[in-house]
């Protein structure tokens, strides 16, 4: 058992027998008996069909949902005991469609958490420039634009920059590239994969796209109907013999050109 402190420090996020359900709302937000450890610096991809509970797990990690049973520990403290505002400010969050504030400029969006945390102006401004460059947007060209003046891919880049601005140790991403066209998506996946390796953050990434999971993950956790059915490295994952794994791997081979 992991009783040594040296080992437990390594657990950035831990689910202990977590179930979540609301009696009358959305069957899709149900998860059962989840035990899961996300180690420091790994990129864990939660893979599953729509409604398998991926987003619910993500929302349990930043206290947007609190478990019905069991507990979720973030940096060894239960989300029930965290000051949720503090917890969330230490966790970057990127969602599909980015969720940028339409009344803020790109720079104001990226500066959100530094502003809430009362950083001084020059430090915030420098950080905004640094973040925009990090995600491949020229600050001089983009800082003063509004979100509506950006393409979908650019908006999502700003979403990533905003999530990283206060340098959180943890990054949660909920199908961030899901709404993009295939070309832009591939471009952002490649760039993000390189970025993730460089940043060394603990990342939990939700997707229903096996290709994306294989590209980004250090470990893939497969969910089916609210339960974990597989957990493996990308290489191991493809060799697993589970019906739901096969359902996903067979979706890979269904591409034009691959003769049936």
């Amino acid at each position, binding site marked *: 058992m992991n009783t040594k402190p040296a080992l437990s420090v390594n657990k950035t996020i831990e689910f202990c027998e977590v179930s979540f359900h609301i009696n009358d709302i959305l069957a899709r937000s149900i998860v059962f008996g989840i035990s899961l450890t996300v180690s420091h610096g790994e990129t864990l991809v939660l893979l599953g069909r729509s409604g398998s509970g991926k987003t619910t797990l993500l929302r349990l990690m930043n206290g947007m949902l609190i478990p019905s049973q069991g507990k979720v520990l973030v940096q060894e403290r239960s989300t029930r005991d965290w000051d949720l*505002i503090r917890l969330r400010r230490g966790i970057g969050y990127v*969602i599909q469609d980015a969720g940028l504030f339409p009344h803020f400029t790109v720079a104001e969006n990226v500066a959100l958490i530094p502003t809430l945390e009362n950083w001084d102006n020059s430090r915030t401004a420098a950080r905004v420039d640094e973040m925009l460059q990090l995600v491949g947007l020229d600050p001089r060209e983009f800082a003063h634009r509004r979100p509506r003046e950006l393409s979908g891919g650019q908006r999502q880049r700003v979403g990533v920059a905003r999530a990283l601005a206060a340098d959180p140790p943890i990054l949660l991403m909920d199908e961030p590239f899901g709404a993009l066209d295939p070309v832009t998506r591939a471009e952002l996946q490649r760039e993000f994969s390189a970025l993730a390796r460089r940043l060394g953050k603990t990342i939990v990434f939700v997707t229903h796209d096996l290709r994306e999971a294989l590209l980004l993950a250090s470990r893939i956790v497969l969910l089916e109907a609210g339960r974990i059915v597989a957990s493996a490295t990308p290489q191991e994952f493809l060799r697993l013999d589970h019906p739901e794994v096969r359902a996903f791997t067979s979706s890979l081979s269904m591409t034009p050109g691959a003769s049936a």
Partner: protein
Amino acid sequence: MTTWSFFVDHRAEILGATLDHLELVLIAMIIAILISVPLGMFIVQRPALRAIALGVASVFQTIPSLALFGFLIPIPFIGGIGKRTAIVALVLYALLPILRNTYVGLTGIDPVVLEAAEAMGMTRAQILFRVRFPLALAVILAGIRTATIITIGVATIAAAIGAGGLGTFIFRGVALVSDALILAGAIPAALLALLADLLLGLVERRLKVS
């Protein structure tokens, strides 16, 4: 006597009544905004209060304006003859459009934006003041615009309880069967309403964030 020469001969009186009218409308609108907008912000997260507040404001709207002025006269402190009673009635009329639009504007925000705000650790108050309110501003202003136009019209009836304004000409014109007198009240009131609509429409367009 033609209507035009009546206007020219009585231009000072008409201007005076128009300014009185404008004063009634402005005071009533300022009070109505100061009540409705904060109330709308307060009821966003409180479903029980929301039903009561919107219900009460709707009831005021259903009372015929002349009757509402009449009802208020015998009430102590806010009632009686004159401007004060008229302003109270006008405020009651203006509440609903502003309150409803404030509520609709604050709740009609893209859920993805609200989710991002919550997930990034904004407090409820920060979400309300820095996200919901600025994004709702155009809708709130549309409510203020509607309320202003209603108030300019209803304020003509305030003359019935001695509050002055352009209604004075209209009531006198009805009593004396004089088109010129009626028009001396009706035309400036219509122009005021058009002007208010135009100006507030311009502000509203500037505030709109798509």
